[in-house]
């Protein structure tokens, strides 16, 4: 089952399966965030302002509406 990143708990992760928006997908893939990349939610920004993620060893920060377009598997499922 694929889940949106915003459904992951802090500390959890999985592999990216796909993106739900082509426009955002294009931008993320430019940075090397791809289907198949390993993703982990490290922490939430102050004021619930966004996500601090580790993707294949890179640190990526996203707004909530940007992160909601990334679908991942959930480790342990």
């Amino acid at each position, binding site marked *: 089952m694929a889940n949106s990143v915003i459904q992951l708990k802090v500390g959890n992760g999985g592999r990216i399966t796909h993106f739900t928006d*082509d*426009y*955002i*997908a*294009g*931008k*993320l*893939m*430019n*940075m*090397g965030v*791809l*289907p198949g990349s390993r993703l982990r939610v*490290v*922490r*939430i*920004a*102050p*004021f*619930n*302002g*966004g996500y*601090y993620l580790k993707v*294949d*060893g*890179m*640190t*990526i*920060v*996203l*707004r909530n509406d*940007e992160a909601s377009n990334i679908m991942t598997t959930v480790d342990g499922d």
Partner: protein
Amino acid sequence: MNTVALAGNPNSGKSSIFNQLTGLRQKVANFPGVTVEKKSGKLQLPDGEEVVLVDFPGAYSLYPNSEDERVVLNVLANPNSENFPDAVVYVADVTGLDKHFLLLTQIKDLGLPCVLALNMADTAEQEGIVVDTQRLSEFLQMPVINVSGRTGANMDILKEHISELLRQERKKSADPLYQPGPMEENTLGQVQQLLGIENPYRALLVAHHALKLPYLTSKEKSDVTHICEMEGFNGLRLQIVETMRRFELFTPVLQKAIVKKAEKTTLSDRLDAVLTHPTYAPIIFFGVMFVVFQAMFSWASYPMDWIEMGFGWAAETLKAQLPAGWFTDLLTEGILSGLGGIVVFVPQIAILFLLVTLLEEVGYMSRAVFIFDKIMQQFGLNGRSVVALVSGGACAIPAIMSTRTISNWKERLITILVTPLISCSARIPVYTVLIGFVVPPKRVLGLFNAQGLAFMGLYMMGIVAALGSAWVLKKLLKSSEPSWLMMQLPPYRLPVWRNVGITIWEKTSAFVLGAGKVILVASVILWGLASYGPSAKMEAAKTEATLVAQQKNLDETATGNLVASYEIEASFAGHLGKFIEPVIRPLGFDWKIGIALITSFAAREVFVATMATIYSIGSTDDEGTIHNRLAQAHNPETGEKVYTAATSASLLVFYVFALQCMSTLAVVRRETGTWKWPLVQFGFMGLLAYFGSWIAFQLLS
């Protein structure tokens, strides 16, 4: 002369390599038609050839996400561009190499001769990364070398390779990595025929970006769009397919070519656990800011004193050496004092740049952007606006220049428009002189100094006004352009001092030369207005002043001061002051304050100097003295004090809000490319100042 491009992802260390290769022989200009900064420099190659090295903005791919990235596409897809390179040095960070290969393979497919420079070879060794450059070189069909922007290692070898690339025959048939699918082939084939493009990948890029490529005519744009429509060319989908395919092709090669230690928690991760902590991060940020401003004010005060003394001495000496006359006066009172007014701010600006550049170099500023993005969005700003608002506390000019990182035009414009509301260092002398009339120097709750609290209150007023105006502007300005946070945080790194030094040098000299010209011209004009007037009236003023001085039995200095103050009333500036008096009466200001308001439109700090001249004090050094003089000033008709609490508070509010700084207007004009926005900004800040002062005066009087 051959052009060599320096390209790479953001945070690849491109600037370090650029600085290593060109040193201070750099020119900063804009890419044609956009406000994206273009740095270029001359480079002497080992075979004696001199080439121009152009530093391209950092980009992730030829499918651009920002104005900066768009420049890379616009130039590389247009062989007729003046910046089109004859060879490309591609800089990649060896610690995350796979992510750097997307743009590299795209540039390669354009048929440009490339050399791959693997940066940070020194850190790679420490982190246990070993790269098989031979294997990469065979795969990419280009030379691959290890370099270090930090230590300058292997720069000679890099230069050799550039020479080599420029000498060799352009190979037409270098195999492209990406093989387009049948539908892309059909489309790009037609585009190739239509526009006479030789390279297939360039034709494909034209198909993708036709509408936004500035060098195509509108007929060409519509023809290409027509081809794409007929072929059912879905740009977004095809971009994703191409990107995936490229990663599939080079990732296995990279996995074989690179030996890495297992990933572990790095020092950056541990620092971020504290510095981006959901609760503590904002508190730590304000602590850091406090230290930055403390350091700026305390370190800068010494060199500022020396500079003031130096200019004072120079003026005295010139006056003593040169024959008295209008030329000497213009030189000493106009030009020298104007120059001094610029140079005196150099220490503060340089120190602020040092500290802000350090925070940027080590990677902290990008964390601040992440921490405050949510709050900034509420006000129509971007997390990236934090950098400008912070710098605005010292000087709005560098702050406004720092907004170039904001890709959304509306967010950037709002940031530019509200930044001057943050109290800058030029307001400090004005606040210091006037605050004593509003708040007595007593203690509140036995702890706080009441005047200190009032000082903080003025700063807060500026911050609230900035955020409030931003909110209003957010409602007024329309934009369909999407706004982004999406960003990669670089690992924390020790600063490269060479980069810090070059940045400070560049930005400080840009301030002195750019803003300096405006201040210089303005101060010469103001000197003229304050020194000259209708000659009959000037003569009468002088005679009267001398008469009064004789009656009062004043000494030579006091007589000179009295004459100066009578003359300024009769001067053109005095007439201007009287002319605007009816407008500023409701704010509690008389014509003398009017002159100060007019003169301080060049720069706020002129207020104290103008007041000193009008109230005939020879020197402004001692703010206690000017404070006493202002306290004794009376209205000659009513006998009331001029500087009541109401007038002073009103004046303070005026200085918090009004945009009295020609240099800021000049910079906003440059950054927005039109006079419209500086005028809008001048207008709304002026209205805010006028009504703010009016309310303050009416409440207190």
